[in-house]
């Protein structure tokens, strides 16, 4: 039988996460936990003077969905300007995962996005955006 959520692509990112590890002297780093399942990730970024993400790494532990989502997200944001992070949303993450996420697992898929957004918004001093995303996060179920 086939497993809807555990496609080859997801398992590949889970077993061989891209951009896994740490950066020496990162410009931004942020760590967050989902206490419900214990998933936790830290993202680190190296930013050039124009605000371009020249390197990104993540590390941490969690389920296959969250880890694959984190791995894919590093590929998505690498090379982007940090101001573009604002345009990344739930839809992009789901599209890049390419699977249907059941409602109870949505937060697994979105935790890495939360870490990235809070990291970048904090760096930019944008508290309003953090609050807005946290509101959206609370509604995810």
């Amino acid at each position: 039988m086939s497993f809807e959520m555990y496609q080859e692509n997801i398992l590949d990112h889970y077993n061989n996460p891209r951009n896994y590890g740490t950066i020496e002297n990162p410009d931004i780093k942020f760590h967050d936990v989902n206490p419900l399942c214990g998933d936790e990730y830290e993202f680190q970024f190296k930013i050039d003077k124009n605000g371009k993400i020249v390197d990104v790494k993540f590390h941490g532990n969690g389920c296959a969905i969250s880890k694959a989502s984190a791995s894919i997200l590093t590929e998505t944001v690498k090379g982007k300007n940090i101001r573009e992070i604002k345009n990344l949303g739930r839809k992009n993450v789901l599209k890049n995962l390419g699977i249907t996420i059941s409602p109870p697992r949505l937060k697994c898929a979105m935790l890495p996005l939360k870490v990235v957004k809070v990291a970048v918004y904090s760096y930019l001093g944008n508290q309003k955006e953090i609050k807005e995303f946290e509101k959206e996060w609370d509604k995810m179920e």
Partner: protein
Amino acid sequence: MELKKIRNDFPILKRKINGKRMVYLDSAATSQKPKQVIKEIEKYYENYNSNVHRGIYKIAAEATEEYEEARKKIAKFINAKSEKEIIFVRGATEAINLVRFAWAEKLRPEDEIISTVMEHHSNIVPWLMLKKKGIDLKFVEINDDGTLRMEEFKKLITPKTKLIAVSHVSNVLGTINPVKQIAKLAHENGARILFDSAQSVPHMPVDVQELDCDFMAFSGHKMFGPTGIGVLYVKEEVYREMEPFMGGGEMIKEVFLTNATWKDPPHKYEAGTPDISGAIALGYAVDYLEKIGMKKMKEHEKTLTRYALEKLSKVPGIKIYGPKNAENRGGVIAFNLGDIHAHDLATILDEQGVAIRSGHHCTMPLHSKLGVSATARASFSIYNTKEDVDELVNALNKARKVFGI
């Protein structure tokens, strides 16, 4: 009653999930409901829906009679001395909170409460809330096999200990705690004893007099009743140490603009219109359990647990938590498979029609003791079969293939 006949009483078991027979292994979270109980809810609303303890008319009298009859059935079911010892609440959580507000409010700074690290949050958080009053909390640790370190009770108990609050059966480890022994120790030291019996009353014979407990909390929805109804048993003499915590209708004798007087227990603790259909349905759930027989319930679950422990322990990479021997445990088995996250396991099993629980099961302190953030948990009731266990094992083996372990 035969198992096949029993399974037929639970309409939901005919459901298909992803085209497969649903294998429901989450009765520790909530049990399924037999049609005999569902019908009584419908019967109440279609035939005698009315408020209790007030109306003079025919159907109000019927509702009151059925509601109080349910209380009697529950009292008899746990061998309470009198139905006065049964307070209807929303569930085990509310039952424990009732003790916290109606009994523990009188505790003074430096008084102590002893609990254990294996408790459900509902038997930890209400006591944590008392810390701001200066109440000291102490927790008994567990051994590697998931049993309580019994010698610690003796070390922790002092003349300042006013309450020991302990689960009868762990909702994760399945451990059946020696609660009678703990009650004895509490009483020898002048403390009260509370049992969180949410995982015992639905699964085995429970006798409050034999166990000599002062408070016992359990939920209706885990014992074939509906959600929204549960029970706090209070030993009658303990009522002297309690004050009502909710004021309003139903709980008063007389009200003046200067003061009010209370009804006698248990009604003193049932302010407002209660969950009438829920209480009545719970009474019929008790009838259903008694028809099967609690000894038979226990035997059946023990047989399944033994079978499951044997089969599961053969799955490569599995780690099972709690006592290894089915004799000492209820029908609850928590486990992890390799480094697969419990949520991934639960999703893969769900895709095969097998419903298990994953997460911390409202026991975060216990999970941190076990050194994991989440576990998968299968739990049984009378309607589960060895085939259900086989389906679980097959599904786990498929999960192993998916994750390459």
